[in-house]
């Protein structure tokens, strides 16, 4: 069985210290301090989330008075209900899902096929094509030429402006290529002898046996599309097409008066409303995260193995 974990070290492992070794007194002190600091680090990392939940369920008066920190005060769910019944919010959510699914599908189709072809070491022109990919890691056209290209193609205010231009990530492609290079030859050879073509081998042998790395790449792309907002701000001026991240950005910008750039009316928007929208935006990621975390970690480490 081929898994992503084949070359990936276990970074949750802790060093085994023989029982016979006694820690010096100062090292014991260090360990206590170390553990305490780490607990504080975890607390600081989680605090914004805790504060967010507290603010989302507090009544406006307490927030304005600056009395909401760890727990909700003046418990209220009216803002939550308000947002949940707002069309604008659900439109954004729907668009985010469309962008994520569409973008990831296109990106995966291009990335897996290219990675598979480039993993074949005998392929003539291989190093040229690899070079073509690597260059994009260190040099890109820049904001203005990209903007002019996308507008010139007539992608503005279409979903294509979001899901096509970010299709191939050089990093993801090189990770997949390195993975396919280590794919056992025997399997592919046996299939070839049985009369399978490259297409058959790729779709019926290689892909099904590469589920772990494919899942990792899907997650990498999906998170990037889910979180993206800037391309939407550049190319989607029609509110009906905007993702929820952009909706949230406009809320934040409106609240601070920087919203003029986005061409939105200047309104003082309650911290409560912001908090509810933020909460609803992060919930899917926070819920899925614990289950998929290991794929990200192994993906990052696979990427560090030089292709």
């Amino acid at each position: 069985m081929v898994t992503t974990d084949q070359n990936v070290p276990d970074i949750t492992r802790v060093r085994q210290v023989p029982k016979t070794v006694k820690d010096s007194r100062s090292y014991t002190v260090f360990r206590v301090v170390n553990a305490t600091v780490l607990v504080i680090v975890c607390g600081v990392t989680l605090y914004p989330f805790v504060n967010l939940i507290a603010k989302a369920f507090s009544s406006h008066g307490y927030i304005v008075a600056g009395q909401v920190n760890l727990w909700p005060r003046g418990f209220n769910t009216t803002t939550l209900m308000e947002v949940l019944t707002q069309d604008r919010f659900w439109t954004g959510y729907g668009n985010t899902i469309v962008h994520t699914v569409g973008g990831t599908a296109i990106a995966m189709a291009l990335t897996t096929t290219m990675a598979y072809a480039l993993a074949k070491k005998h392929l003539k022109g291989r190093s040229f094509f690899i070079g073509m990919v690597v260059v994009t890691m260190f040099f890109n056209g820049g904001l203005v030429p990209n903007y002019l290209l996308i507008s010139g193609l007539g992608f503005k205010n279409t979903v294509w402006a979001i899901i096509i231009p970010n299709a191939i990530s050089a990093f993801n492609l090189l990770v997949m290529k390195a993975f396919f290079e280590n794919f056992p030859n025997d399997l592919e050879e046996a299939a070839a002898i049985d009369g399978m073509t490259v297409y058959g081998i790729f779709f019926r042998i290689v892909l099904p046996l590469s589920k772990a790395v494919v899942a990792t790449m899907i997650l990498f792309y999906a998170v990037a599309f889910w979180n993206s907002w800037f391309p939407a701000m550049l190319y989607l001026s029609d509110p009906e097409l905007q993702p929820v991240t952009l909706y949230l950005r406009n809320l934040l910008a409106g609240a601070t008066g920087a919203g003029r750039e986005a061409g939105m009316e200047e309104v003082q928007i309650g911290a409560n409303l912001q908090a509810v929208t933020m909460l609803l935006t992060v919930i899917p990621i926070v819920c899925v995260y614990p289950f998929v975390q290991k794929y990200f970690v192994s993906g990052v480490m696979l990427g560090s193995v030089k292709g």
Partner: protein
Amino acid sequence: MARGTGTVDTVPQTAGTPPGGADDVSADGPPPQQLRNTYTWARALRRDWRLYTFLILPVAYLIIFRYVPMAGNIVAFRRFRPGSSMFGDEWVGFYYIEMFISDPKFWDVFLNTIVLGTLTLVVVFPLPIVLALMLNELRSRRFKKIAQTITYLPHFMSIVIVAGFVYQLTALNGTVNQVITAVGADPVSFMQRDDWFRTIYVTSEIWQVVGFGTILYLAALTTIDDQLYEAARIDGANRWQQTWHITLPGIRPTIVVLLILNIGTFMAVGFEKVLLLYNPLTYASGDVIATYIYRVALNSGSFSYGAAIGLFEALIGLTLVLSANAIAKRTVGASLW
């Protein structure tokens, strides 16, 4: 099957035998060695055409969406008018280059970029190493796992969410100001003060990237042989000496490679985050090259001028990563390629 693999592997790969057997084991078999020089594109296409079909769309994609924009930088030397092609209308030479060189605003944002980039590099870059070393000293696998899960989480948050957290926490009624008033000082309107912008930017960067940044260091730490620690202990080295003489040298290649990558992106300071966090009141310290380009090109419509600055920025970035790589290769023998 094993025997078959053995023979295939002994043929040099340049001779054109697919190591994977691919589609042609049945077609025409491995070409004799002496044909290596005559292994032409015609032959390559005939035997591997199915593989090449896999490349058509991705390569077309790369050309259109990566290489055409690179060529599109030509607009920096041509005048762009609304409605003209993306490459501009007519040659104006170095008009736009001279324009930004004599633009005092440009040098302000250039300086801001360097300050913010340096701060990020100096403050944020070493922290994942420290955190990884701290995690490495834990002896409870459970605690280590929980700490890792929690500290990786911010990496997955959209920058918009991070900005939202910043606004919530630094608001006049937010937690930070509550602490400030609790100790008797006056509340600070952080987001409106340009002297606070850099602190806020770097702090939010720490919150988001430090945890996830430990992964590669932790991976490098697992490759250090436990016997080295054993030997050092027998020689009487204490924990601190073990860290200094075994652990740090063990992860040095990783540190160097990541440092090069960071230097390469030095000029590209979190553009999207700055865009979300700054406002006209904090331009004095927050405005960076990328945001200036954004305003010049997309708000004022001076696309050629924006492209000229963008080209300049990209060339600096490329120079930085190439020279950092060369220096690393010469001094510590670790490099990206």
